[in-house]
């Protein structure tokens, strides 16, 4: 797989509490991206005031492309648009995203145009911008539930998102709570590789080889 040249990543961290496994995943992703020379917009959503998207559609009909409400939610579409890779971190919540992640995600509506077009048998809204970004999603479930019904719903949800967001490449992983740091790092490296980010361990190994040479 071709590696992405280093670019800009937007990390939407939807942790509701100190989820240890997601913390490991967060650190592994940050390490992997840093090793690859990526600039990361690391956004801990629970720390910010983002009003619920009110479903007013003013971002379509009044100020196209921009949320009409002036709070941190307004910046979601802008930060999203400027990224080459978007990352979601979330506890799997009934098979979906946490309310913390979703409060930001609901604000990506302005990246779409309001028009309806039929595409591959389903109606879709066209993308407002030509630029696309890869998508990487990590969710956590209780131990022993990685293949349970909620994990399966979660994977289906991410697949659904990709039909609307149209990432060139995407990857999803459901990790079990209690997974160790190393186990999480191995999973994250595999995910990063799927979206074209060279794993951190490879970068470290390469730099070691350069030193030896």
């Amino acid at each position, binding site marked *: 797989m071709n590696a992405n040249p280093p670019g800009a990543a937007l990390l939407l961290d939807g942790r509701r509490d100190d989820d240890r496994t997601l913390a490991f995943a967060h650190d592994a992703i940050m390490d992997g991206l840093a090793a690859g020379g990526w600039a990361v917009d690391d956004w801990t959503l629970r720390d910010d005031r983002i009003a619920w998207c*009110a479903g007013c559609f003013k971002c379509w009909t009044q100020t*196209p492309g921009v949320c009409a409400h002036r709070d941190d939610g307004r910046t979601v579409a802008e930060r999203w648009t400027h990224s080459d890779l978007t990352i979601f971190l979330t506890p799997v919540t009934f098979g979906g995203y946490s309310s913390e992640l979703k409060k930001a995600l609901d604000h990506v509506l302005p990246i779409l145009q309001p028009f309806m077009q039929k595409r591959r048998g389903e109606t879709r809204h066209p993308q407002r911008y030509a630029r696309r970004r890869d998508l990487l999603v990590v969710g956590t479930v209780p131990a022993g539930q990685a293949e349970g019904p909620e994990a399966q719903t979660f994977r289906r949800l991410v697949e659904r998102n990709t039909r609307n967001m149209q990432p060139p490449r995407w990857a999803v992983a459901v990790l079990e709570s209690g997974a160790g740091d190393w186990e999480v790092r191995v999973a994250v490296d595999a995910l990063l590789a799927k979206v074209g980010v060279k794993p951190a361990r490879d970068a470290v190994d390469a730099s070691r080889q350069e030193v030896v040479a």
Partner: protein
Amino acid sequence: MKAPKKALLLVGSPKPGDSTSGSLGGYLLEELEKRGVATETIRATKAVRTEEATEGLLAAVASADLVVFSFPLYIDSLPAPAIRALELIAEAPAAAGAPAFVAICQSGFPEVDHNEVAIEICRNFARDAGFEWAGGLILAAGGMVGGQPLRKLQGMMRSAVKALDLTAEALAAGRSVPDEAVRLMAKPPIPKIGYRFMANWGWRAQFKKRGRGGSLKDQPFA
């Protein structure tokens, strides 16, 4: 499930005024009332705003033996405040009984497929929270309702009205949402191609009326 004495409608739409989710759920509640079921309505956005409001939501859930959750599709899933309400309900101590839980999901797309994952999420919630799953209904082309009372649109929305009538009859008798109601609710009120044409015309008309210059295709962050 048993025949309910009290039903709670939880409206998951974040819209401050009239909403299609409120209209669909409200119609079902009126039909349940006609069959002797006491009803209460709570909006998710208000219920998660303060601790006091959340306590009110939890008390209402605890006293209901049927919860109807009506919400719009947001980015392939539930709106954030609706998820927050479900998180709070699931985290609260389980009620003595196991209330029945019904989900109604509507979206502006003319196909029901978009909403299926959201219904699955509701089903998972019901299991996690110790509720009894009583079924889910999906309405496509929700733009046809546009927050208006369903009774006002009877002719155009006759399949949805019939679906909700059948649902009320079944739930009031202690039965789950009938398959026929699911089928009727999923029936598009007009052909998809016509709906897309009308929707696109509608967006242009709204922009002409409300837009502050530029174009519907503006790229402010390009």
